[in-house]
């Protein structure tokens, strides 16, 4: 089907070109609906993904503030909480049910809706056609559907918050039997049905998007744009899409079996269960099977989140160092290695489930192997800065912050990947610190870097720089203050997903620290609102962009008009003559990809 779609659009694009040559204006008739709502323009779809993602980021962030209130101030009461949460905060005190619902929804929406849809949905849509030199995606229609499936998934997820028994509350990993049995927890009743429906819709959205990105990158590059002349953003988005297309269906199958177990009496995951005074008839199922299916997506998922950020950071570091990215081929090679290995390490999340020890040892080996391509990337980024001429645009600051966070979080992966250490650290706050730094915050930084860097192209305006700098410094300092001390809590054995530690002799020594962390979390959250304000204010009132190429970058998106219409280039699509990283070559500050190679140009 996708083949057909591609072929179809090819001819379509050809027609566009002819049209474009004469005049851009008569294009087609655009109504408000077709321009802003059911738009098929990849740039508009990108903005839709971005703004929906922002909505979820605010909601998910707010949830973390609420549950951090409980952890930071377990004895205090907040009457206003009861006003907004009702029975979920009786007496101004968040209940355990509400706490777990908040944690679960926070995790789910941040991983999937913000950092998958909001991040790769936005930038894959925005950058792929612009940077490979295409008028739009291979199938603009499927692309539009991809957004609307995401939108529907969002609506369903949102509605689950309002059901009587509450949203799903068994953790974002949704392990059965807890997630399979309404009797095990109220959140596993209607809330879980809605969670599953929402996630199923989300998988469809990801697949539609991913197939489109792959088809576009492989088939619709402009003349001269060989694969090895692609910007690293595109390579990263390409591997991201491949990971998603190959692993989301496995998650989907896991969910289908779960739906069967929940509703149709099958026993895929259920066996030997006695709950609420009743012995269930199910025998012979394996609860571990779900974990394999889940983490077969779950691990690639962390790279689905991270790779687009890596790609954008590579691009932004190079542009603002005014220097080529160091080791372009090694960067592609390491992306490739990470993409392959991402499929071969999933069971490192399952070392203590009773996994066969020999199998466990293989996964230790493969997991620590991933650290090698990760190390290559870090050293290459550092070398890119070396002897450059660094401009601290807000985008650049976030890119540097990304590298710092990726180092900090990646190194603790080496601890966790070694099963004999994981047996001690698994499911403690150490894991929370690890994955928030390396995946959560780092990818958010990649996303911010991308927004600051491409905002001029998206909206024809600049974001306010001063607000950008404040945003950066508060966020990076805050992120470290929140997550760094959590390593210590983890090293004390403090388990994650606990509502209250006061009954525990072993874990109650951190009250002060927990309060500190919660306070910083609130400040950081408020700073994100500042960014949000900057974003929306600047769309309407920001300083206007007056030059085509404000950062002096080489890639194709900066050869489009200030506010490109549907089709991107009014005339012919430019031809590409070189790789995108000729910065500082032969004394020239930058040489756009569209500049033919000169006769006396040096070779590298």
């Amino acid at each position, binding site marked *: 089907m996708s083949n057909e779609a591609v072929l179809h659009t090819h001819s379509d694009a050809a027609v566009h070109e002819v049209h474009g040559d004469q005049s851009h204006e008569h294009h087609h008739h655009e109504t408000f609906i077709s321009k802003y709502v059911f738009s098929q323009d990849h740039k508009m779809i990108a903005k839709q993904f971005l703004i929906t993602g922002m909505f979820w980021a605010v909601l998910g962030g707010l949830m973390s503030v609420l549950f951090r209130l409980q952890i930071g101030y377990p004895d205090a009461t907040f009457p206003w909480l009861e006003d907004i949460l009702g029975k979920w905060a009786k007496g101004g005190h968040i209940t355990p049910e509400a706490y777990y619902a908040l944690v679960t929804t926070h995790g789910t929406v941040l991983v999937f809706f913000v950092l998958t849809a909001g991040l790769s949905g936005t930038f894959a849509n925005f950058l792929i056609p612009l940077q490979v030199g295409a008028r739009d995606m291979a199938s603009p229609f499927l692309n539009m559907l991809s957004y609307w499936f995401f939108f529907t998934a969002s609506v369903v997820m949102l509605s689950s918050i309002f059901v009587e028994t509450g949203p799903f509350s068994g953790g974002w990993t949704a392990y059965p039997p807890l997630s399979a049995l309404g009797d095990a927890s109220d959140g596993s009743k209607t809330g879980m049905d809605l969670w599953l429906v929402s996630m199923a819709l989300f998988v469809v959205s990801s697949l539609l998007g991913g197939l489109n990105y792959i088809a576009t990158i492989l088939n619709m590059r402009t003349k001269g744009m060989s694969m090895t002349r692609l910007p690293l953003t595109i390579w990263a988005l390409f591997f991201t899409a491949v990971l998603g297309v190959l692993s989301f269906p496995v998650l989907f199958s896991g969910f289908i079996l779960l739906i069967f177990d929940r509703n149709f009496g099958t026993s895929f995951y259920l066996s030997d269960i006695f709950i609420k005074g009743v012995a269930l008839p199910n025998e012979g199922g394996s609860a571990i099977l779900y974990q394999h299916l889940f983490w077969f997506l779950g691990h690639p998922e962390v790279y689905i989140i991270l790779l687009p950020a890596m790609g954008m950071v590579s691009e932004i570091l190079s542009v603002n160092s005014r220097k080529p990215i*160091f080791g372009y081929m090694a960067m592609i090679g390491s992306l490739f290695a990470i993409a392959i290995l991402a499929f071969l390490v999933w069971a490192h999340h399952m070392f203590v489930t009773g996994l066969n020890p020999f199998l466990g040892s293989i996964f230790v080996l493969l997991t620590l192997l991933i650290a090698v391509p990760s190390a290559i990337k870090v050293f290459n980024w550092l070398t890119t800065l070396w002897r450059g001429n660094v401009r601290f645009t807000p985008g650049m600051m976030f890119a540097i912050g990304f590298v710092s966070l990726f180092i900090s979080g990646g190194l603790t992966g080496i601890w966790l990947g070694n099963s004999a250490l994981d047996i001690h650290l698994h499911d403690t706050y150490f894991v929370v610190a690890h994955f928030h730094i390396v995946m959560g915050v780092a990818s958010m930084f990649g996303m911010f870097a991308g927004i600051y860097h491409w905002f001029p192209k998206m909206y024809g305006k600049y974001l306010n720089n001063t607000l950008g700098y404040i945003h950066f410094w508060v966020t990076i300092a805050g992120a470290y203050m929140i997550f760094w001390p959590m390593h210590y809590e983890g090293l004390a054995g403090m388990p994650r997903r606990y509502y209250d530690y006061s009954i525990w002799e072993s874990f109650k020594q951190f009250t002060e620290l927990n309060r500190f962390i919660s306070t910083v979390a609130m400040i950081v959250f408020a700073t994100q609102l500042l960014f949000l304000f900057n974003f929306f204010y600047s769309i309407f009132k920001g300083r206007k962009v007056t030059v085509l190429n404000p950062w002096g970058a080489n890639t194709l998106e900066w050869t489009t008009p200030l506010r490109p219409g549907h089709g991107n280039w009014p005339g012919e699509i430019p031809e590409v003559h070189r790789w995108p990283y000729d910065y500082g070559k032969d004394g020239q500050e930058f040489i756009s990809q569209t500049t033919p190679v000169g006769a006396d140009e040096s070779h590298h």
Partner: protein
Amino acid sequence: MTMFLTIAVVVLIFVVIFQIAKASEYVSVLKGEDISRKQNNKVNGFLMVAFLVLGLIGVWYCNKLYFGKTLMAQESASVEGARVDSMLWITIAVTGIVFIATQFILFWFAYKYQENDNRKVFYFPHNTNLEIVWTVVPAIVLTVLVVIGLRNWFLFTGEPPKNHMEVEVTGKQFNWIFRYPGKDGAFGKKYYKNIDDATNELGLLWDDQLGHDDVITTTMYLVKNKPVKLIIGSRDVIHDVGLSHFRMKMDAVPGIPTTLWFTPRYTTNEMKEMTKNPNFVYEISCDQMCGNGHYSMRGVIDVVDQEEYDVIMAKQKPKYLTTFPEKDPSKPVDSVKVAAKMAEPATKPIAKL
């Protein structure tokens, strides 16, 4: 009211920040973008080193405050856990060095190579030798870590020494049930459909004679220096036996028994002295999300020496006898009834372990 005030203050701060930001944008337009960019660059370049220095001080300070509250400051309470600790130290050393070096390079480069009109950028797209070095060196270091790790891993997951004792641990929402095999050293069979919360919380099959001396407790008693193998299961959802003082943990999965072994090396009383905490107890924390009471799923382990253990165990009555008091040989019973009871279950098939 305080809520209102807080919001008002926050909004005020926002407005002030916004006004400053707006003003500085106007100024930068007036001054010319080039000049203001260069000024911003200087400020942020300085902040980069400032962040590096303050950050490293923060790392040190955090360690000063909290190291003593972690388990790193306590000796492992199990022989095997000591290996976890030593591995932890090696890993900290390796990753710590890399952490400091790379963070230093990152922020230092950012500062040092900030924009300067006189600098000519070094066109340096790749260098094969460098790239080989930083592929091979991490690979070697990681291999060493893997070898250390896997040796420990195979020890931990291998067979326990012959002289070990066994305890069965069963998780349920939201507490733990412990079973000892009794004098015969063997557990009787059980089947989950026999579970009855009032009389038979594990679903023991009474037609299995091996189970007649099995003892069920709510505290886990272990013997100092005697390896113990836990046989772990769950009655409902997945739980996890978290033993942070022993540096061990293992999931409790319904339908799939798992095992874990270790050797306690300090009694609870010795730990009270070593940690200078008179309230010290070995706690079992549930480490796998299991429902709304997950955070309260606490178990207690009492490590004692052999004599004390024998005394404690002598006082425990087998579950069979508490369920059928009439079978208790220490009490007079009607022998006919016993014979009838014993004969009857033998005809029932034993469905499952």
